[in-house]
């Protein structure tokens, strides 16, 4: 069975690299420049996307809107990763613009659980 494909969009290359290394069960593609995210997503056709919120050049919301506007990607679940969220918001309000979010720092298990929840794998 082929591995589920996960796209990681975050300007912190150390983070995307380590997440890829700690989650070998998935085929993970890293994008560290948000302006390239849409193009890579169209080529890679991921099953799920993790998207940083605050990035240089383009924020996560802008990138999400571009991806959602693409016919082949509009149903791909997007999960935001954000460092700027209060404890209470992280516990109760788990959505930004209709997309789930995870509060950084996230553990490998949190990300794995999130993928399983969305993709049922």
């Amino acid at each position: 069975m082929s591995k589920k494909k996960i796209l990681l969009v975050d300007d912190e290359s150390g983070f995307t690299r380590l997440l890829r290394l700690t989650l070998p069960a998935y085929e993970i593609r890293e994008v560290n420049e948000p302006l390239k995210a849409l193009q890579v997503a169209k080529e890679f056709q991921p099953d799920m996307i993790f998207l940083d919120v605050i990035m240089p050049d383009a924020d996560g919301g802008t990138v999400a809107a571009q991806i959602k506007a693409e016919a082949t990607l509009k149903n791909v679940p997007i999960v935001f990763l954000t460092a700027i969220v209060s404890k209470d918001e992280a516990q109760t309000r788990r959505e930004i613009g209709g997309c789930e979010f995870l509060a950084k720092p996230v553990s490998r298990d949190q990300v794995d659980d999130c993928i399983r929840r969305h993709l049922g794998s």
Partner: protein
Amino acid sequence: MPRRDTAGRIVSYDGLMSDITEKKRADDELQSAQAHLMQLEKLHSIGQLAAGVAHEVKNPLQIILLGLQYLTDSAAAREPQAQSVIAEMNDAVRRASCVVQDLLDFSSPRELGMQRCPINGLIEKSLRFVRHDLKTAHVQVVQNLDPELPDALAEPNKMEQVFVNLMTNASHAMPQGGTLLVATRTKTITPADFAPHEAGDRIGSSFHAGEKAIVVEIRDTGTGVPPAMLARIFEPFYTTKSTGKGTGLGLSVTQKIMDLHRGKISIENHPEGGVMATLLLKPAGLETGKTKERT
């Protein structure tokens, strides 16, 4: 002006008097409004600072956390002491993350979703949350919760945060073990409730004499807090705890939450020893809805 007789002796005084009560009240209100605005400005600046700090600190923490998880699975982790070193580092990441999180909680603007809350239920839930810490610290819990307590108008998550903060503080105040006493009751507010009677008192709530209030008391049997420290206990970044035990924001956040609920918090040394936090909350009436936080 003195009025004199023919011999030059003062026999009376002439003077004008005017009642300046209203002017004084207006001046006080103006001063209070100015102080409030300055506080809002400060909090706004702290909010911007907090968001910047959160982004710049949490991202490196994120990398360290994942790096530690990667190392946990690697051959290096099988070396003697490696697991304990990794555990220490994980704990350090958690602590650093908590500091940033507290800063965000202290400064983030948000809306309160007020609803009817069973306070006793929230207390029991909070106790379950801190049970592990209490057990580790050999702290026994004694509850005296009024079964007839009315619901409060509050946001449950925020009130839980208040209870957990105070229970955690109580636990930290008893490193050699002790008793955590939690009690609830109702009372009628009297003028004495508005008098500042000890330094850690928090005045300025919206209660008035004759009004019914829900009272929550959370008390430890530790050594208490010196009065000079009690005076500063609600100040942001002020802590009486050792490094790594507290951020100095827990009680500031607690106070802020109580203010948003139009409640009252006081923290005092108890005559029988230890510290007692007393919370006054509004019972739920017919009103519900949202309170916009103005920070």
